[in-house]
């Protein structure tokens, strides 16, 4: 649609940068992959070579045992690197540990690929860096005005208050194992909660990894069938799916909680049969998305990952060229 940026296109493997000969967050094995962050829908295994932040590489190596050190190039935030005909650098995205925006400079034009990002404070990762650019390719997971995330602190207080009110109930909190889990733990600890927190086995390796990067998560106890008898009035964190699985049986009087931006919508809460929704998200809400779209100063806005339509409409109403990324083929 836009010739100016014909060197960037959405291919079957992902977002392809032709003069750089790399693909950003490829969904299929590729020769050279630039990875924004460690979540599985962005960081897959099987690429010949990977460029990512050191934290992201550590996360990928913890998750995929087949990634060899020689096939990775760690690149710190702010350090420029020439790749074929373009220059790239990473800017912090504030999404999870090591999450980056990819800044691409090519023939005097700057493109920023946001990856997943958020603007608000997160004790478990670096804050978002605003990088002025000509084309901004933004995510839009929560790209509707209905999504406004409350401060994480008020949501954590909801959980802590519920523990006091229902000291006989095991608070089973569903969270993603990477990022959300450690962020929630940091927030809970910040509120002075010093009790041991019980974790599902799947959380263990990534919690250890965060600790190795210097994040304090407090005392964590892995759940075993013996432990299930003593969790009344305590916090147990597990992947969201585990709440509905056999794993969650045997806990004393469970109360189901879920930490997610989707918990803003009542129907979602009811549908997932969640009793205590915690609206905590790793993604930008509508306010953050629209603010960022204005602040990066880009004339062109491409939108991907989520509710593209509303954000494209918004960008157009403020006079920007905007389209869903899926159309850039």
């Amino acid at each position, binding site marked *: 649609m836009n010739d100016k940026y014909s060197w960037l296109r959405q291919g079957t493997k992902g977002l392809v940068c032709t003069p750089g000969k790399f693909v950003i967050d490829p969904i299929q094995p590729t020769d050279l992959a630039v990875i924004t962050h460690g979540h599985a829908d962005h960081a897959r295994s099987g690429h010949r070579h990977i460029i990512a932040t050191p934290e992201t590489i550590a996360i990928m190596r913890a998750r995929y045992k087949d990634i060899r050190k020689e096939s990775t190039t760690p690149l710190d935030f702010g350090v420029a690197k020439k790749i074929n005909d373009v220059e790239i650098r990473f800017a912090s995205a504030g999404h999870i540990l090591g999450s980056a925006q990819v800044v691409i400079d090519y023939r005097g034009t700057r493109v920023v690929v946001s990856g997943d990002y958020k603007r608000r404070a997160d004790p478990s990762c670096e804050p978002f860096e605003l990088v002025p650019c000509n084309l901004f390719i933004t995510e839009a997971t929560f790209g509707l005005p*209905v999504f406004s995330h409350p401060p994480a602190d008020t949501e954590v207080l909801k959980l802590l208050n519920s523990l006091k009110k*229902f000291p006989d109930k095991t608070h089973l909190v569903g969270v993603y194992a990477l990022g959300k889990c450690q962020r929630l733990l940091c927030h809970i600890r910040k509120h002075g909660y010093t009790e041991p927190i019980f974790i599902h086995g799947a959380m263990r390796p990534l919690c250890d990894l965060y600790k190795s990067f210097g994040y304090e998560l407090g005392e964590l106890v892995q759940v075993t069938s013996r432990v299930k008898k003593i969790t009344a009035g305590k916090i147990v964190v597990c992947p969201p799916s585990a709440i509905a699985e056999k794993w*969650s049986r045997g806990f004393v*009087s469970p*109360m189901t909680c879920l930490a997610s931006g989707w918990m803003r919508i009542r129907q979602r809460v*009811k549908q997932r049969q969640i009793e205590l929704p915690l609206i905590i998200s790793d993604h930008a809400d509508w306010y953050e998305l629209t603010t960022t779209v204005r602040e990066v100063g880009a004339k062109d806005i491409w939108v991907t990952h989520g509710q593209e339509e509303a954000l494209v409409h918004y960008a157009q109403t403020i006079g920007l060229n905007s389209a869903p990324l899926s159309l850039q083929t």
Partner: protein
Amino acid sequence: MKLFALLLEQLVYSSSRNQKIRHLITYFSQEKDPDRGFAVAAIAGTLQIPNITSSVIRKLIEDRVDPELFRLSYDYVGDLAETVSLVWPSNITSENISLYAATNTLASSSRSDAPKTLAMLLDRLGQSERFALLKLITGGLRVGVSARLLKIALGKFGNKNVIDIEELWFGLTPPYTDLFEWLEGKAKLPNVDRALLFRPVMLAHPIVKNDLKSMSAKEFIAEWKWDGVRVQAIAYKNQSRLYTRTGEDISRSFPDVLDQINWQGVIDGELLVVQKNTVQPFEQLQKRLGRKKPTKQILDQYPAHIMAYDILENNREDLRSLTFLERRRHLEEWFALERPKRISLSEIISVSKWSDLTKYRDLCRLHGYEGLVLKRRQSPYLVGRKKGHWYKWKRDPLSAECILMYAKRGHGKRSSYYSDYTFGCWSNNNDNTLMPVGKAYSGYTDDDLLRLDKYVRDNTTERFGPVRSINPSLVLEIAFDAVQFSNRHKSGIAMRFPRIKRVRWDKPANEADSVEKLRQMVDQSAFVKI
């Protein structure tokens, strides 16, 4: 209003009764008067609040938010009050306007000013409070709290007997300040004129296996258990009321019964539809229930009637401490004297041994009775479900073999189990399709549940949120009290009180029953002449 909004959120997500009660109690202890009383009224549905239509609310939001963005948002969320509460442009710092102030401001603004007043309130409130207010004015909080549950919570909050609250309830009005003062021990029981108030009713225990062995038939009488609605009819001076057994006032729905009252007293009985001296099936009564203003046509088509079986008061004399036999004598005398219209006397069945009563019970299905009620001759009228006085002995259930079609995850302790089942029967058209005929989530043992849960997970064909569609191959033997015709269901029938009797792991699905067979089981027997 912040606490009220939070309470609504907590109630709607709570899966258990006890959890809801705890949230209510916390709210009552944290919120001040008169807001907590107005909250009680809002939940009980007794709060008077001006109704503002959804189109007015839509207009308000489209003046403030890009209509295209609103449309996309509404499409996504699906609920107007929720969408508007979320996208309404707001200040970060919201004010804590009391529920009383908000509803009062709305109520006192003129019809033409109401939208402007509402917008002003929404500007000043936070998101949760906007939602609560919008839900209140568009009608329907839907937080899953019955009037009864609310009263139980009030009782627990004040450490008072729920029966006392029920007795008072209809004499009180929002914001219930006198009620709360009494609950908190700051004042005496509110003084209300109780003449027309609901009297809590005496309930029966189900007969379980060996109960009869330890009871002497000579100490009891039996009555037919009618398939209607338990009611209490009260008349005092020139006024009368009709209540359900939970104290819900249904007077307006049954003018035909109330208009005939020219006596004074409190009668306990069963509400039925009686056409030409013949008792009609329950579905006909259903057409009358929930209809605030029945039309003449409805009144003619489904005339209501009371089958009286007890008298609690006669001419302001409280008879509840008398024995059943004494009350019955009063009831018969009252009946003979008043000759009340649209009221009949329940028949007394007297036997000297239980085996004789069995014969009556065996007749129940044929005549359309739900079963028998046994009443101890010497028992006074005792409130609630006290053991040893009244028993219900239901007729034997029917059963059918159905096929498991869908399963849904349970709540609380059952949240990791697929414990709620939808089952179907073969359709009548011989085209090998299944038609859902009912739902059940009880009757099975813990071992059954474990095995059923595994079966569901291993045989899922599709998922829709918490619901799974199951490869139709497992036969469930379903026990149920009755089948009725129903145009609300695709199968054209509805089961009453279905539960899982047995899981037929052994039975091939093609041997399950057909919808046609269930249709033939529909009670056609309700032809009792009275």
